C-alpha cells in the first residue's frame, strides 16, 4: 500500500485536533502574557516613581472618585476583568488598597453597560424588548444596591480590606498557613519581566522605561483579555451549553453556580450576562430564573484578577493579592446579603421591571438611563463629594 494514500475523515479529524491544540496553546500563551503584563505595571511604577508611587494616586483618595474611575474605565473598555487586572497591577505599583476598593466596586457597575447595549438589539420587538431590557438592567440595579450597602460599610469599618488581607496572607504571607512556597507562577513570570526591563533600560532613563512598562502593561492586558475571551468563547461554547442544559429546572443555586463557572470558562462576565438577555427576551427564561445566573457572573469574573495577582513579586505582592480577594469577597458577600434577604432580593427585580415597562413605551428612557447611570450621576457625585470636602 502506498504511504501517501489518505483517508478524508482521518485527515479532517487530525487537522481539527491540531487546530484545537493550537488554540489551547494560544490560551496558555495569552494567560502567561496577562501575568507578565500585570507584573510589568507594578515593576514600571517602581522604576518610574520608586517610593513616591503612592503620591501619584492622591487624586483618587476620594472614594467617590475611585468609584467613578472604576465605573467609567469599565464602561469604556467593557470588561471588568481587564479593569480589575489593571487595578491589581496598579496596587502592585503602589496604589493603596483603600483607594483601589471603590475602583473595583465601580468596575462591577461599569461592566453592566455591555448587556444593556445587547438588549437594545431587541428594541423593535415590543414585549421581547421589555423582557430583554429587564434581564439586562437587573444586573445594574443589583450592583448599584451592593455599592450603596457596602461602600459606606467599608469606609466605616474596612471589613473588606481586612478580609482580603487575611486571605492574601494565607497565599502570600510568611506564616505557617502560607502556601507561598508552592507558587510556581512567579518563577516563570520573573524572567520575562526582567528581560523587558533590561531591554528598555538600555536606551532610556529609568523614569521613561518605567512609564513605557506601565503603558505597555495596560495595553497588553486590554489586548490579551479581549483575545482570550474571544478564543475561550469559541472553545468553551460546547461546555457552556452542557452546563446550561444541566442547570435547567434546578433552582437558583444551580443558576448561580452555572453563571460563575461559565464566566470562569469564557473569562468575561459581560459575555455571561449578555447571553441571558436573548434567553430572557424570548420569554423562555423568566427574569427570576436568569437573576442568580447574572450574580454568578460577578463571582466568576474575580478569577482573572486573582490569577494575575499571584504573579506579582516584591513587597506589594501581598497587597495585589489583597485587592483581588477584596473583589471576590465583595461579590460573594453581595450575593449572600442581597440575594439572601428576600426584601433586598426583590428590589432589583422590581426596579428593572418598572424601568423596562417605561422604556418599552418610550425608548428615550433607555438613553436617559445610560447617560444618567454611567456618566451624569458619577460626574455629579464627584462634584458633590468635592463640595463636601471628602
Amino acid at each position, binding site marked *: 500500500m502506498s504511504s501517501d494514500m489518505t483517508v478524508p475523515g482521518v485527515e479532517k479529524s487530525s487537522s481539527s485536533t491540531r487546530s484545537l491544540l493550537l488554540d489551547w496553546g494560544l490560551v496558555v500563551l495569552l494567560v502567561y502574557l496577562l501575568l507578565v503584563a500585570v507584573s510589568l505595571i507594578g515593576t514600571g511604577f517602581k522604576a518610574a516613581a520608586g517610593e513616591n508611587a503612592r503620591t501619584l494616586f492622591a487624586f483618587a483618595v476620594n472614594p467617590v472618585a475611585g468609584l467613578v474611575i472604576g465605573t467609567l474605565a469599565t464602561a469604556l473598555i467593557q470588561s471588568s476583568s481587564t479593569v480589575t487586572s489593571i487595578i491589581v497591577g496598579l496596587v502592585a505599583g503602589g496604589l493603596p488598597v483603600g483607594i483601589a476598593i471603590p475602583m473595583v466596586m465601580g468596575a462591577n457597575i461599569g461592566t453592566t453597560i*455591555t448587556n444593556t*447595549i*445587547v438588549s*437594545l*438589539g431587541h*428594541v*423593535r420587538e415590543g414585549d421581547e424588548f421589555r423582557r430583554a431590557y429587564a434581564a439586562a438592567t437587573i444586573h445594574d440595579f443589583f450592583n448599584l444596591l451592593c455599592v450603596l450597602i457596602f461602600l459606606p460599610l467599608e469606609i466605616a469599618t474596612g471589613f473588606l480590606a481586612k478580609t482580603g488581607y487575611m486571605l492574601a496572607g494565607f497565599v502570600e504571607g510568611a506564616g505557617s498557613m502560607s502556601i507561598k512556597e508552592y507558587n510556581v507562577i512567579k518563577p516563570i513570570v520573573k524572567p520575562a519581566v526582567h528581560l523587558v526591563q533590561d531591554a528598555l533600560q538600555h536606551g532610556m532613563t529609568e523614569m521613561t522605561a518605567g512609564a513605557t512598562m506601565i503603558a505597555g502593561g495596560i495595553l497588553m492586558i486590554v489586548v490579551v483579555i479581549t483575545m482570550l475571551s474571544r478564543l475561550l*468563547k469559541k472553545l468553551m*461554547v460546547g461546555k*457552556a*451549553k452542557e452546563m*446550561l*442544559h444541566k442547570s*435547567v*429546572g434546578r433552582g437558583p443555586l444551580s443558576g448561580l453556580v452555572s453563571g460563575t463557572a461559565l464566566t470562569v470558562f469564557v473569562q468575561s462576565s*459581560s*459575555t455571561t450576562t*449578555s*447571553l441571558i*438577555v*436573548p*434567553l430572557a427576551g*424570548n420569554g*423562555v*427564561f423568566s427574569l427570576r430564573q436568569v437573576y442568580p445566573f447574572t450574580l454568578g457572573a460577578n463571582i466568576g469574573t474575580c478569577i482573572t484578577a486573582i490569577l494575575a495577582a499571584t504573579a506579582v513579586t516584591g513587597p506589594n505582592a501581598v497587597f495585589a493579592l489583597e485587592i483581588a480577594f477584596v473583589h471576590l469577597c465583595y461579590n460573594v458577600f453581595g450575593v449572600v446579603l442581597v440575594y439572601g434577604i428576600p426584601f433586598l432580593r426583590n428590589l432589583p427585580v422590581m426596579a428593572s421591571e418598572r424601568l423596562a415597562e417605561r422604556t418599552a413605551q*418610550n*425608548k*428615550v428612557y*433607555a*438613553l436617559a438611563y445610560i447617560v444618567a447611570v454611567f456618566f451624569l450621576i458619577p460626574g455629579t457625585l464627584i462634584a458633590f463629594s468635592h463640595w463636601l470636602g471628602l
Partner: protein
Amino acid sequence: MLDTIKRREELEAKITDLETSLNTLKKQLREEVQKEQHRDIDHLEEYLDEVDHRYGNLRDFWGIVRKELRDFFARRKASDTNGGDSSA
C-alpha cells in the same frame, strides 16, 4: 345525616381529582417550559454572535430614539402653536 356525609365525600373526591389534574397540568407545563429552555440553549452560538455585534444595536437604537424625540418636539411645538392661536 348520611346525605351530608355522602355529599362531603363527593366534594372531597372532586377536590382530590382536581388537585391531581392540576398537578398533572403543572408538571406538563414545567416539562414544556424546560423543553423550550433546552431548545433555546442549543442556539447559544447565535446569541454569542449577538454579543459580538452589539454596536450595530446602538446605531439602530439611536435611529429610533431620534425619531421619538423628533415626534415629541413636533407635538410640543404643535400644542404651543395651538395654545398661542387660541389666546390671540
